[in-house]
């Protein structure tokens, strides 16, 4: 979707400023949100693509104005509500009023380290076909503006590039983020010249790579 999260190429935000001291968190609640979101993953009530979609569907003005962990908190609350794990009233009061939803698992403290290292988030799946493209091949990206989740950003649509790596057979977020299952597809690294993306004023040596799935690409 062409939402507030699709920031590549926007202008006017000013310089990138590195803050002195570089704290990971800027309020007491921020690390709690980070950790709760990590732990809620174990309930398997949603996947990572659905969680990204919950954040990017915030109204663009909110997405741009909210702090990073505020966006995480808003996304998590949307997911908790849509999975009927909590109610609006419960979120307001903090008090339990309805029975809990069934979950896959709750991580105990002793299980956290191993769970974080279990490679449970791996996105590659058993290959069921062969790649349609090979390294070195010229491709174009599709010109599509879906209302749902997609990992093909606006700035790289309808552009010509070249396949630079075959990365594997991976869960397709444009499916899994839209509640349509893993639907794994071949994933490629695709290189685009800066001039193709941004016009002839750019340095001809410069380029951008994106990792894109086969349905994003056509022969050119």
């Amino acid at each position, binding site marked *: 979707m062409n939402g507030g*999260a699709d*920031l*590549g*190429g926007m202008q006017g*935000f*000013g*310089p*990138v400023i*590195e803050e002195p001291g*570089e704290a*990971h968190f800027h*309020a*007491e*609640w921020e*690390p*709690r949100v*980070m*950790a*709760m979101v*990590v*732990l*809620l993953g174990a309930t398997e009530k949603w996947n990572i693509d659905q969680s990204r979609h919950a954040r990017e569907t915030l109204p663009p003005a909110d997405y*741009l104005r909210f702090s*990073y962990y505020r966006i995480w*908190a808003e996304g998590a609350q949307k997911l908790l509500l849509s999975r009927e794990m*909590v109610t609006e009233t419960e*979120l*307001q009061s*903090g*008090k*339990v009023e309805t029975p*809990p*939803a069934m979950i896959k698992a*709750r*991580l*105990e*403290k002793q299980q*956290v*380290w191993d769970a*974080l290292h279990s*490679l449970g*988030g*791996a*996105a*590659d799946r058993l290959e069921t076909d062969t790649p349609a493209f090979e390294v070195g091949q010229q491709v174009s990206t599709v010109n599509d503006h879906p209302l749902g989740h997609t*990992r093909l*950003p606006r*700035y790289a649509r309808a552009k010509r590039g070249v396949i630079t790596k075959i990365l*594997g057979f*991976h869960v397709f977020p444009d499916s899994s983020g839209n509640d349509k299952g893993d639907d794994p597809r071949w*994933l490629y*690294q695709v290189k685009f010249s800066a001039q193709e993306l941004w016009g002839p004023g750019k*340095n001809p*040596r*410069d*380029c*951008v*790579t994106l*990792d*894109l799935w086969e349905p994003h690409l056509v022969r050119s």
Partner: protein
Amino acid sequence: MSHDHPHHDDDHSHLSEMDIRIRALESLLVEKGYIETAAVDEVIQIYETRIGPRNGAHVVAKSWTEPDFANWLMEDATAAIHSLGYTSRQGEHMVAVANSDQTHHLVVCTLCSCYPWSVLGLPPTWYKSPPFRSKAVIDPRGVLHDFGIDLPETTAVEVHDSTAETRYLVIPQRPAGTDGWSAEKLASLVNRNSMIGTAFADNPS
């Protein structure tokens, strides 16, 4: 200070609306049986103290001192990095890119904030911010300038937009004057930003 909000020295009076909301959320989720408070504390402790850029610095320094490992890293970064035990989440699929005089690599995630947590820990605020996410792909040389780096026109800038579950680790160039250094000593020169592409490795002082 507004006259309508008298000052209290009690810390709790400084709790923001977000602090209150998130406390309520946590107690609700704990009471519902979805999460455990001790596990929340554990996740925070792990990412504050145990998983961070020292992991990545180890990978980089090992690649500087062991050509076989450097080759493995370029061919199969996932296996090479996992062999060192760095298998935590947001590092399941890795690609390593090595800087040279000819090419400078810079990593961004324009759509969210994908970042190799397993080797660099949690991303810095600037990495997640709209200025970086918007500008890195359209004006990478401007971003590098913001970080005090002005590359010659003859050095290509290659930006990697992390649009999949693949996570990119930049291998900075080994600084001059470090011949004969141990991997351990070299790792102390590998700062976090140099593994994102917004800095060079430190020079030996």
